[in-house]
């Protein structure tokens, strides 16, 4: 089952640069190749990506494919899915893996559908059983896991969750470089400018302690309950996405994949279940504390300390104890 890793680059400001998640996928590709005793190659799409391709030729890979075309300079799902489809047909790759980025989410299902396949998206782990690959995904926002197997004929497609594999495990070596030119027609979709919203007034990354609040707080009027805890600890107040979506706290206080990524000395999650989109933004924190009524909440998987209980009773008690401890 020859393996192909599709790397991702983007040119936000300046020349194309890696999306670092690609290197986690590359490490996974090498690991799978070892376990399945199959060759692994990597591909990079775009224009002006020679420097990035050269970096790939110094890794333990069979081939590095540079998929170059004027129409690949700016990403569109039409051109990217057509280009990868042609590369898969050209190489005969049987297992094609991607980092589970926003861009991959935009074109991988289209590519798989065009080939009559279903991609296994957002994979967190794998095993090889009797020479067959078993992929692990999360269900119900991370509350359960499920083993998934491919059925039918290859090619098989999968995307890997951020942080599921370690980029520092990539093995160096050398690889042959090959340029592949796909046949493309212009996309119906016109990509326009990339931009960021107004500068952030709150820099959560500078906070030593963060108290973060999630859906468990139930309504906007209850926010002062956790604000009191933040005040007692001298912490910044942050939130998970739903709280900012609802306008209960400003967007600039959002922690997670679409908000800020933080790693304070202590991160105290109150009423946050711990969907992966939130976890990727805070799991690097030194000490993680979680308060949640559901002992199976995924937040407890990354927590050092946890209280299973009703936050409306636990948080006021905690404020009192913190104040006592600080006297």
């Amino acid at each position, binding site marked *: 089952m020859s393996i192909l890793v599709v790397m991702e680059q983007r040119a936000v400001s300046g020349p194309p640069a890696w999306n670092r998640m690609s290197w986690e996928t590359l490490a996974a590709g090498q690991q799978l190749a070892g376990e399945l005793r199959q060759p692994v190659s990597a591909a990079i799409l775009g224009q002006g990506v020679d420097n990035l391709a050269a970096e790939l030729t110094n890794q333990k890979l069979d081939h590095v494919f540079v998929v170059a075309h004027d129409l690949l300079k700016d990403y569109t799902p039409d051109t990217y899915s057509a280009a990868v489809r042609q590369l898969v047909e050209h190489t005969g790759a049987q297992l094609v893996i991607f980092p589970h980025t926003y861009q991959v989410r935009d074109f991988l299902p289209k590519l798989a559908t065009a080939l009559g396949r279903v991609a296994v998206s957002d994979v967190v782990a794998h095993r090889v059983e009797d020479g067959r690959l078993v992929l692990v995904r999360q269900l119900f926002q991370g509350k359960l*896991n499920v083993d998934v197997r491919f059925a039918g004929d290859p090619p098989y497609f999968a995307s890997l969750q951020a942080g599921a594999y370690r980029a520092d495990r990539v093995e160096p070596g050398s690889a042959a470089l090959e340029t592949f030119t796909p046949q493309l027609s212009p996309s119906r979709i016109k990509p326009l400018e990339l931009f960021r919203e107004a500068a952030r007034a709150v820099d959560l990354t500078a906070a030593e302690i963060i108290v973060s609040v999630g859906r468990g707080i139930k309504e906007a009027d209850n926010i002062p309950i956790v604000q009191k805890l933040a005040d007692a600890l001298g912490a910044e107040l942050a939130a998970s996405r739903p709280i900012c979506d609802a306008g209960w706290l400003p967007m600039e206080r959002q922690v997670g994949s679409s908000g800020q990524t933080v790693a304070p000395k202590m991160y105290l999650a109150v009423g946050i279940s711990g969907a992966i989109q939130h976890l990727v933004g805070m799991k690097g924190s030194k000490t993680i504390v979680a308060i949640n009524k559901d002992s199976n909440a995924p937040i407890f998987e990354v927590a050092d300390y946890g209280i299973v209980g009703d936050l409306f009773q636990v948080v006021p008690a905690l404020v009192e104890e913190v104040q006592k*401890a600080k006297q």
Partner: protein
Amino acid sequence: MKTVVCIKQVPARDSQFRVAPSGAWIQDADLAFEINEPDAYALEEGLQLKEKHGGEVVVLCAGPARAAQAIREALAKGADRAIHIQEEDLGAFDPLGAARLLAAALAPEKPDLVLTGLQSDDLGYGQTGVILAELLGLPHATIIMQVEKQDGSVRVKRELEDGWFQHVEMPLPALLTIQSGINKLRYATLMGIKKAKSKEIRTVTAADLGAAAAAPSIQLSRLYVPGRSKQTQLFEGPPKEVAAKLVEKLKFEARVI
């Protein structure tokens, strides 16, 4: 403008999940269900576009008989009519099979715009919208935070990682997958609930659509509770007691207070 919004009914977010004895799915007999949250935002966006530009909002939902409750809620919020693809066992369909069902019901409607949520809270593949676009031959964009209809085209704001966004333009008809938080959800009014009772819900089956479940290309073999990656010290008991225990740990063990 005619918009079709695809919605899914999923177990309520705060459900306690138990794996069924077969290991193949959860025990869902006694669970509460709701409209998948990103789909609720997609519906709201459809309703707001109708208020601005006129036209019709059609709700499309594949699911068992109980999904009729989600459809009635969507009609009460203001959708004009609905199509219910009634299938008791959607688990027999992989994401491509499920999208084929939706595509078969959607194609004759010839909508200007198709909206879906960006992913479901249950399976979470995040693929149905994009697969549907490919099956229907429509241009698409995902994780959308703003929709602006123009003459024969649509200009949207895509969310990217790390606080970045991108504007993208495409001709209509098109398909968009909507991100939670794009708008403010409305509640159904009493008047809306009353009106919904006389709105059309057309019920069809996979067989009617000629899109019965084919051999799936991926198989879910076993569900289980994930193991912990960290040694978590968990405290349970009277609030005052557990709060004191935690503060002691934070002060003397973690040394963060």
